[in-house]
């Protein structure tokens, strides 16, 4: 029996066995693993801060001014007609008026053009308090069905306007299509009819890809409940621009949708007569209906807010920049710095004897070179011009 055989677990054994492993365990050097990758370390120095603020100010204020200017140039006519287009005898029961099939819905409004309106003049209808963004409403559509005839039966997401009572599918299905806006406007200036073009009021991609050219309305508005507009069953969905515009649900309960374009200039102080077919029921939920005529600029419609916001932010930045500049003029950086930072040691009894401000004299000793010269023999110190060598 050889007890030594198995008992090599002593210290010698341990070091021996670790020897071959040594290299495999040693981490390999790379700048990545040693966290020494080259890096830029931007520091918010006063210079940078002031420059940044001034820069933002300089960029923002012109943008703001340009936006405001563009917004100013936009001419807009807004006419709320929901109340006016109800005959006075129905003013107590507006809902009954709009829901009745017998009443005459035609209504005439006249608008004065405040300024010259360059063509194209966009015609919008605006609805208030209409929750096109309600979850139930938004989800109630079938993109597949709208796109191709093959998916006509795909109405599962459209409830409760998916099918008619005999089970055949409604095309286009869903609440959005069902509640299609159905007021119509006719414009005339000096008894001359203004054409309202419906060209390009819908997104091209919608017409080309989302609404099929082989999909025709079917069973639409044929149920017991009639929602909004009816569709001409002989025109494919891709040509039903009003529907396509309507199907783009708005983000907010107040929204405008494009009705059409007037492609002639409107002169200032011209009187436009609008004949409105007031069919759409906003009376039950107290929604407003507005007719909007507007030109556009590069920022779109009349939008003062953008310009104001830009000016505010830019102005604020300039103000901050001025504040910082003032501070640095009054209190330069490096004077205030060291006194504030870090815990002062109470270990200054010698320095306390001396005057507060000292000319900084050069001297050569630092902890580093003392530390590094562990085995070097000469530690030289310069003390008031005399050097002492310790070796």
């Amino acid at each position, binding site marked *: 029996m050889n007890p030594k055989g198995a008992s090599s677990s002593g210290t010698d054994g341990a070091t021996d066995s670790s020897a071959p492993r040594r290299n495999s365990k040693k981490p390999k050097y790379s700048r990545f693993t040693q966290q020494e990758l080259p890096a830029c370390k931007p520091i918010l120095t006063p210079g940078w801060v002031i420059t940044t603020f001034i820069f933002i100010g300089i960029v923002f204020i012109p943008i703001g001014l340009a936006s405001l200017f563009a917004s100013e140039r936009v001419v807009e006519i807004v006419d709320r007609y929901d109340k006016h287009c109800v005959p006075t005898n129905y003013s107590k029961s507006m809902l009954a008026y709009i829901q009745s099939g017998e009443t005459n819905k035609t209504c005439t409004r006249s608008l004065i053009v405040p300024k010259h309106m360059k063509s194209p003049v966009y015609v919008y209808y605006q609805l208030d308090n209409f929750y096109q*963004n309600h979850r139930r409403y938004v989800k109630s559509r079938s993109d597949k069905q709208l796109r191709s005839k093959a998916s006509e039966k795909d109405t599962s997401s459209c409830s409760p306007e998916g099918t008619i009572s005999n089970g055949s599918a409604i095309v286009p299905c869903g*609440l959005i299509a069902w509640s299609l806006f159905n007021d119509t406007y006719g414009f005339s200036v000096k008894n001359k009819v203004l054409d309202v073009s419906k060209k390009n009021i819908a997104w091209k991609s919608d017409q080309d890809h989302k609404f099929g050219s082989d999909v025709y309305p079917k069973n639409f508005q044929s149920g017991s409940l009639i929602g909004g507009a009816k569709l001409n069953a002989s025109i494919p969905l891709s040509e039903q621009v009003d529907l396509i515009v309507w199907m783009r649900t708005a983000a907010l309960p107040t929204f405008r949708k494009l009705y059409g374009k007037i492609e002639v200039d409107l002169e200032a102080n011209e009187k436009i007569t609008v004949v409105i077919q007031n069919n759409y029921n906003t009376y039950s939920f107290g929604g407003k209906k507005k007719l909007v005529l507007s030109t556009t600029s590069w920022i*779109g419609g009349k939008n003062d807010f953008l310009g104001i916001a830009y000016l505010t932010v830019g102005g604020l930045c300039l103000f901050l920049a001025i504040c*910082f500049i003032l501070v640095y003029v009054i209190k330069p950086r490096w004077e205030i710095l060291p006194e504030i*930072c*870090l815990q002062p040691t109470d270990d200054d009894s010698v320095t306390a004897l001396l005057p507060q401000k000292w000319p900084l004299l050069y*001297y050569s000793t630092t902890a580093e070179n003392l*530390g590094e010269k562990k*085995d070097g023999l000469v530690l030289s110190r310069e003390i008031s011009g005399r050097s002492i060598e310790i*070796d």
Partner: protein
Amino acid sequence: MPRAGRIREKLRWSNLYTFSCLRPNVLEDGPHSLQGPGFSRIVYCNQPRVHQKKPLNYPSNYISTTKYNIITFLPKAIFEQFRRVANMYFLMAAILSLTPVAPFSAVSMIAPLAFVVGLSMAKEALEDWRRFMQDMKVNSRKVSIHKGDGIFGYKPWQKIRVGDVVRVEKDQFFTADLLLLSSSYDDGICYVETMNLDGETNLKIKRSLEVTLPLVDDLAFKNFTAKIRCEDPNPNLYTFVGNLEYDHQVYAIDPSQILLRDSKLRNTSYVYGVVIFTGPDSKVMQNSTKSPSKRSTIERKMDYIIYFLFTLLVLISLISSIGFAVKTKFEMPDWWYLQPQNTTNLYDPTKPALSGIFHLVTALILYGYLIPISLYVSIEVVKVLQATFINQDLHMYDEETGNPAQARTSNLNEELGQVDTILSDKTGTLTCNQMDFFKCSIAGVSYGMGSSEVEIAAAKKMAFDISEHNSEMSSVPMHNIKARGLMENSRSNFGVSEIELETVITSKDEKDQKPMIKGFSFEDSRLMGGNWSKEPNADAILLFFRILALCHTAIPEPNEETGSFNYEAESPDEGAFLVAAREFGFEFYRRTQTSVFIRERYSSSGHPIEREFKVLNLLDFSSKRKRMSVIVQDEDGQILLLCKGADSIIFDRLSKDGRIYEESTSRHLNEYGETGLRTLALAYRKLKESEYSVWNSEFIKAKTTIGADRDAMLEQVSDMMEKDLILVGATAVEDKLQKGVPQCIDKLAQAGLKIWVLTGDKMETAINIGFACSLLRQCMKQICITTMNTDLLAQDAKKALLVFLITDQAVKENILMQLINGLQMIKLEKDPHAAFALVIDGKTLSYALEEDLKHQFLSLAVNCASVICCRVSPKQKALVTRLVKEGTGKTTLAIGDGANDVGMIQEADIGIGISGVEGMQAVMASDFSIAQFRFLERLLVVHGHWCYKRIAQMICYFFYKNIAFGLTLFYFEAYTGFSGQSVYDDWYMLLFNVILTSLPVISLGVFEQDVSSEVCLQFPALYQQGPRNVFFDWYRIFGWMANGLYSSLIVFFLNLNIFYDQAFRAGGQTADMAAVGATMFTCIIWAVNCQIALTMSHFTWIQHLFVWGSICTWYLFLLLYGLSSPIISGNSFQILVEALAPAPIYWSVTLLVAVACNLPYLAHLSFQRSFNPMDHHVIQEIKYYKKDTEDQHMWTRERSKARQKTKIGFTARVDAKIRQLKGKLQKKYSSLSVQTIIPPS
């Protein structure tokens, strides 16, 4: 039979131990009466099979430290995962997403959750697997076991059963708790090293019962049967109660027959033993606690934030569901376009309450973006990467052992940056457990030129600081001649340190030339190479060397390689003495029962003379006596008593004419002690034959006495002899510190960390090490709390036959008194520089840790600059750790290397194991392992600091971005009649957390560096940002949340107003929900990514790639999404190309919102930097302006200012010394100035 064993067979070691050579009669005490609960264990020796079955059914020797096994992994790990509140919430959300109430599709809820949970579980599994492999390594170690018929064979440890007879060989660990039957020595003793259990370095003697002595070879066990009745498994390492029934007789077993698992057989070639406790029953395993799953402070705090966000979530969900119910009830009936008459329960105006409740669920899911699901997984990823950096750090790789640092759990990286108290083991952690003979003082002359590491460090520091002060002094315009005189004066004072420096440098030089001899690092040509005989006190030196060579209990063992001898000594000190004696020319080469042989070389040329000294008596060392003596008779017949012992004890026993050197020796002893050397005083006494023989008969009488008084009598008799001594000199042995320990402790102290030393070692040793590491220094006030003085009290009580309880009470009261006195002392202290050190021993600690005393103890301890606990058991280490952890509420770190540290490593918030030493228990239980103590500095000050800041900033940012995003969903609800519709596409939301904002924040968490690692090390004070929790306090967290709130408001309302009803393009089109959603989302992506770019202060290409890449990814996604089939993209079809990109307003809104969102933060940041800069800001700026290279003075001044008010470490020591010098200087200065002011009349 091994060779060494045979050599020693001739020698009965036990004869060396005079006190133990005569066995106390076991039968007299009688067997223990083992009755009642707790003493039910029965072991049938040599019949291992019996114990596997009922009723005994003892466990096997298999140990397991894993958290899970194959069966429990899934349920347990899943449970662990869903203990996180956020995960639980997401689980609920995922389940609900299968129902129609969900606002999103089911996949978008379930997939991220599965990913997150799966990843975390995989990590757990991997970590546990590593633990399992480690266990297997231990379990499959082989041991020789009796297989029947007297044949022994090797078996893995895990197969060992209770009752097995095993044979353990030299330097092997004991397999289980064994009853020692016999050893290679005739008298059945063996030597055991218990370092793994209690950290004590000296060997312990275990002794078998007399009846089992004949069982000396394998065959003897053929028919061996016996029965052991003993106590049940318990964690008490120092007690054992049991009886051995053998040969129809009953013998009592006490702890001296028990060999504990994880201790090691030393100096004995083999032992036989019977297994009593196996595996989990063994004392060491009983001492270990289940490895707890630790969570960092930040993570725990994060839970509170999550609770807060939950509250917020529930609140806004309630608001929106109430709003929904109200709207549904009162307004929806009028919304004909929704067909309110045809609804399901979800939108039924006739049942608003029910709809409201359904909506609440929807809302809870919808606003789930407030709670970052990816937070946990991102943190996991970041921590794993951080851990990789720790593992890969070359600065923490130890070339000697080949061990890199290892983060064993990555959960606690950031906790490393918040440590307040370090509890450190001593042996193996601070010290190497190697003693070097270093200096000596003979006849009042100090020899030895070396400087200990701490001295070198302190001297350097001193030289530097003085030069700094001098340069300040010298910058005084020299118009005052008096000041110049002062300068000269001060320089002469500082001369001390220059001498110190000199010694440092010379010693360094010589060290390089000479090969190192283990145990001997003495350098002084006056004594070496026989030169000592030319010294004036040559005879005293001769005597000194003889004492070194004679007064010990070691055994020489020839070393074939070098031709000299190795010594197997009881303690490493003794070994060092013998090596020293050998080097001085007094080689101890042989020991017989009665004599010690020494080969003396007087000069290098002279032939060696062999001398024999008869050892007449040996009065051995005990911690109570603190001395040992031998009485020898030289060849001339002269009888000498040679004595070595603690200085205080020896000085008390000097004769009148033996005190010639007392003053100088004690001065030297103080110097040695100050630098942390272990000192012993040596003395002798010449005895007359008659005097000796009278005493010897007394001594024999005492030795043969039977009964309780024997020990006391022996002591008394020895006492009679050890008096009227003549002092020869003193030795100083360096307990070799591990490399870089003093510097590391100094830096850690500067970083504001408190360091406690918990050691199993003796108080003297512990205090020495305290000095060596500069944890203690001379002018520090030591508060020693012991039961020493209460021992007397106890004895009195015993004599008075008082009940034990009363003495216990008295002891306790005494300790309380000591504690209160200590506290009083600290309170009354006026000097701001005064530092206190608390030293307490294990026995006292056991009282101090009791419920009623522990608060006093803690409040005293936290007021002391350093705390040293000695002779503490593993359990006590853990208890102290717990006390500190719970009592102060601060983060504790425990560092240790042995099994005895496992408890404290597990108990502490962070446990660190020293790897590379034998025994992996500490490493196994630890959260991090490093190869050397000195790596702790880098681990904490660099990695800890970084990780803390990274994680803190990362979490804050996470909450910021999710609030900024989540609240916009809520605001939008108000505009949709609270219907639960979101303005964003489902895909945007899915991508927001997973892709679009996760990588930048991960890069922040992995790569951010506020200052480089060198600066971290130069300014340890920066570390204090962690323990003070500057980056994760509620102020900051709520600041970030407010920032998120502000951003959400800006994003939403700016977009809302700009896209309100107007056309957004020159083409007259108005924005629909898809366009508004995409624009808003673009704004958010810009805002949060710019925000993180502002937060970062360190940009490598990775950060650039991730931050700007994320923004690009968003546009890319939007582009591709728009190009995909309209069935998938819905209203977002071609949105970027057709609708948004051509609209200038889209881009201008993005710019506006991104700037507006970040403006307050930018302003805040600039303001803070200018008026209230934080430490790292200042350092960054100094670095930025290259002040460190251009203006050295500034740099050093900042650095010295950054020094904490440290009270420990050599810097503090130097500071204290400089203060002393300055005090003198100031006195002179004032007296000088007084002179100048008064005009000479």
